[in-house]
């Protein structure tokens, strides 16, 4: 048996395994779910819930990097990650991710409630087992179905307060679920060669760039009205309605440009713009949802 080399992993490598940028979106949407839910949660318990959701998301990221190290090694976007760069052993990442996954679920269950903990466990399991280990390598619908994992956090935040789920968290889930395909396929258009080299069957690789552009437009056409649905359902007020209307219109415009601009620098530029704006879109909608809720709570109606 080969001698084990002492680890050269730094603390920053373990933080990188948690995918902090993905975690920021998870924490933010979970925070909104937690704050707009009816009822009261002590700030310490609320902080605990958010911490557990963040650590659970980080654990998913670490387990994803453990399993996908072979893919990460051949993609320019990911080859400097700790495992392909050789700073963290795959087994270390597996142990780190598995430990954090178990801890985050157990602590959420013991200190907050077991319904939220069960949702977190399902989310981690879905992301690691269904998306990472199964769908990602076999179907171009990988990020459509796998996107559900990224859509659960506001629902978990809501469940941390109420102990159940209702229409409002389902609408928040749907917004992120339908937002995921245009967001990732815009990136897929830009990184199609990378995915092809890694043999990941992303839609641009399997169905081609034009089919991907059509799918982006179709999903955005569905996303825009669903983005307005919390307003229609009476769950959000006019601040949210106006923001969702403006952002939905811009998303549609940018998706249309991606569909239209198919050649050269214009095609690249359109995909980049849609990718960048899609990040702003989800942050803007959830910020508006929070702002609307806070205004209502302090008695301001617009």
């Amino acid at each position: 048996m080969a001698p084990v080399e002492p680890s050269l992993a730094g603390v920053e490598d373990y933080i990188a395994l948690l995918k902090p940028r993905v975690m920021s979106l998870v924490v933010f949407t979970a925070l909104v779910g937690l704050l707009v839910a009816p009822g009261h949660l002590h700030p310490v318990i609320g902080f605990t819930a958010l911490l557990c959701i963040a650590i659970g998301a980080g654990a998913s990221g670490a387990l994803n990097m453990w399993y996908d190290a072979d893919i990460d090694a051949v993609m320019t976007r990911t080859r400097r990650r700790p495992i392909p760069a050789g700073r963290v052993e795959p087994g270390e990442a597996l142990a780190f991710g598995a430990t954090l996954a178990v801890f985050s679920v157990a602590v959420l269950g013991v200190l907050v409630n077991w319904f939220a903990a069960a949702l977190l466990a399902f989310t981690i399991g879905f992301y690691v087992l269904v998306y990472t280990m199964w769908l990602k390598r076999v179907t171009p619908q990988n990020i459509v179905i796998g996107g559900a994992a990224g859509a659960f956090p506001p629902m978990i935040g809501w469940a941390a307060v109420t102990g159940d789920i209702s229409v409002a968290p389902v609408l928040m889930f749907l917004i992120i679920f339908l937002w995921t395909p245009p967001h990732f396929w815009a990136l897929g258009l830009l990184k199609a060669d990378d995915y092809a080299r890694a043999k990941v069957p992303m839609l641009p690789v399997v169905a081609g760039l034009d089919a991907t552009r059509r799918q982006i437009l179709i999903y955005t056409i569905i996303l825009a009205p669903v983005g307005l649905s919390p307003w229609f359902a009476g769950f959000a007020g006019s601040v949210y309605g106006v923001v969702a209307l403006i952002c939905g219109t811009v998303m549609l415009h940018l998706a249309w440009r991606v569909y239209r601009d198919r050649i050269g620098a214009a095609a690249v530029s359109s995909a980049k713009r849609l990718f960048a704006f899609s990040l702003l879109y989800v942050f803007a909608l959830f910020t508006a949802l929070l702002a609307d809720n806070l205004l209502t709570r302090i008695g301001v109606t617009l």
Partner: protein
Amino acid sequence: MSNGADDGIVLTEEQKRRRRARSIAIALSLGVLAVLFYMVTLVKGPAVLIRPL
């Protein structure tokens, strides 16, 4: 047969520095966890405080 002292892995200064950083990070995380459990115990129920000493 080996004579003990020279056996085993000898860490370089860089490896020692990183191991120390990891150890500190683990210690801090466990400390935060202990404080969190303590605070949640205070928040969740007066029952845990109202008991014969």
